[in-house]
């Protein structure tokens, strides 16, 4: 629920490091991403406190998100004109009748590279094995001597680094404002829930399903009905497959 904050913190911290503190833009990016990961890890005590009380946990995270959003709005209101010139490719490519900004193609490849990296870490490293073990059975993991708290905190940081990094390169293609986190979070939530929470294969399929629905409805019916169509599709699919497209909590 507090995930939307990571988009905001990475963008606005990059701006802070770059414009306010005078660092180089390309140095500000990893600093902001690292800071976002650390902020996420710093929230671990709150999450640990409410691990067995999901209602408190979700409400607390929503509140933290709303507080973060408002604090950013106070420091950098829309009038500040926050803008990150993180174009890697600025030109537009024509593919038949379609024109597409090169940055989108770059972002797609970058996303896939990061996705593969995450699969590799989760499937083929010892840390990934431990994360999967905790996901399967917390108590058994403890019996095997896993430092559950450390892994939880690491996972929290690990989970926000990729979106924090990608949103910085996405920012030149969208309008930056302190309230941009929630719509991005809703899209991420749609994908995660539709795919099956914790399953990367399902998430990948769901991302393409949502993307296809957005494109098809936006192109064929009405661009204003894009989100509505994907939301309805998610609810219908979840009624048929209550745990999403893929089996949840099985990574792949």
């Amino acid at each position: 629920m507090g995930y939307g904050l990571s988009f905001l913190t990475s963008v606005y911290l990059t701006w802070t490091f770059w414009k306010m503190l005078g660092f180089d833009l390309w140095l500000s990016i990893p600093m902001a991403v690292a800071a976002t990961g650390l902020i996420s890890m710093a929230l671990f005590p709150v999450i640990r406190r409410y691990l067995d009380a999901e209602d408190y946990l979700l409400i607390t995270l929503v509140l933290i998100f709303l507080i973060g959003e408002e604090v950013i709005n106070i420091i950098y209101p829309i009038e500040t004109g926050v803008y990150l010139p993180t174009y890697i490719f600025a030109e537009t490519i024509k593919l038949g009748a379609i024109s597409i900004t090169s940055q989108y193609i770059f972002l797609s490849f970058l996303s896939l590279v990061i996705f593969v990296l995450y699969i590799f870490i989760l499937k083929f490293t010892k840390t990934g094995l431990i994360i999967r073990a905790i996901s399967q059975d917390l108590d058994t993991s403890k019996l095997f001597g896993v430092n559950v708290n450390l892994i939880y905190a690491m996972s929290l940081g690990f989970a926000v680094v990729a979106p924090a990094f990608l949103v910085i390169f996405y920012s030149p293609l969208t309008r930056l404002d302190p309230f941009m986190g929630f719509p991005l979070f809703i899209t991420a939530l749609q994908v995660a829930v539709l795919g099956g929470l914790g399953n990367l294969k399902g998430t990948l399929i769901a991302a393409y399903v949502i993307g296809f629905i957005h494109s098809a409805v936006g192109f064929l019916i009405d661009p204003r009905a894009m989100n509505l169509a994907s939301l309805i599709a998610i609810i219908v699919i979840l009624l048929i497959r209550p745990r999403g497209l893929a089996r949840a909590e099985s990574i792949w």
Partner: protein
Amino acid sequence: MVVKILRKERRGRLIFEIQFRGISRRFEWTVEPRYWRNPIIATILWLLAPVFLWMVGRYSLISTLVFANVVAMISVAYSLRVIGTGRLDFGPIFFVALGGYVAALTSKWYGLGPLETFFIAFLMGIFIGFLLSPIVVISRGIYYTLITFVLPFVLYEIAYWRSDIFGAETGIPGVPPLLPLINPIEAELAYFYLSAVFVLAYVFFVDKVLRSKYGLMMGVLNEDEDIANMYGINTNYIKIIIYSITSGMISLAGWFLAHYYMSFTGVLYLSPEFLTLILLSAVVGGKGAVYGAVVGSYFVIGVRELTRIFLGGYSIVVFYAVALSMIFLLPEGLWGLYRKRRYREYIPSIKVRRKT
């Protein structure tokens, strides 16, 4: 005159001793919800509050109390929903907007008055709740929470997509007023008492339900749905009925808002900020506590109003920070604090299910 408060001699009782020129008198005060004295005093103070505000000239605060009552209506119905379905629901605002849109559109299109729209909004809430109730049977745990969280955004997107019908951010104007009163102060007072009647009716109804055999079944369902099924309780029946009825109850809050403001801007009530108000009211009041939902609503709306008056631009941050502190420091809620003095299980308590 010396007023001495002696220590409690028995649990749940405060004993005051007043000494004046050698004469001493003792007064006993029972701090116990099952005795009617405290609830009656609290209710009288609550009902006199707008009169007091009217006397001191703070008219604008009366509308805050009306809004607190509307939030209390939603929170009480929401508490029943959470208890009766055994699931954490993030979608009550969907039905607020539904009720409001139904009232506003039927008024606009067919020229219906508040009484007609009352029944239509209530029945439509129940009907849509019934249509959506398979969610409560099929989904569990975090999936249910997230589906219900997504549900209001469907209506949100529809409101923007068909802004010619739903008005999007401009809303639907021209909804007839609930009460035909010209004087604005008299109207505010009347609205307060009308909304208070709704809150009392909701509390009475939910209290009766929870004390009935169905309340007991809901308690079992909350503890463990599989065990409830093993005992022969038709859990699906209970969940569908509760989901549908509470949908109708929450829709009436939307109906009230549409006629109270004489226009309805649904997207305002479909926002995460409004959802947070409802969730906070239920949690700050005391999880699953019906009376606590009313207390929590007043606390949440009161703090929000105070921060708005005194803190200006920082009000929202401070309000959320206070709410966060309340959850952190007082997890049992305000009602729980009261109950903790002398624990008794009056109604089934909530246990959020972790099965997915």
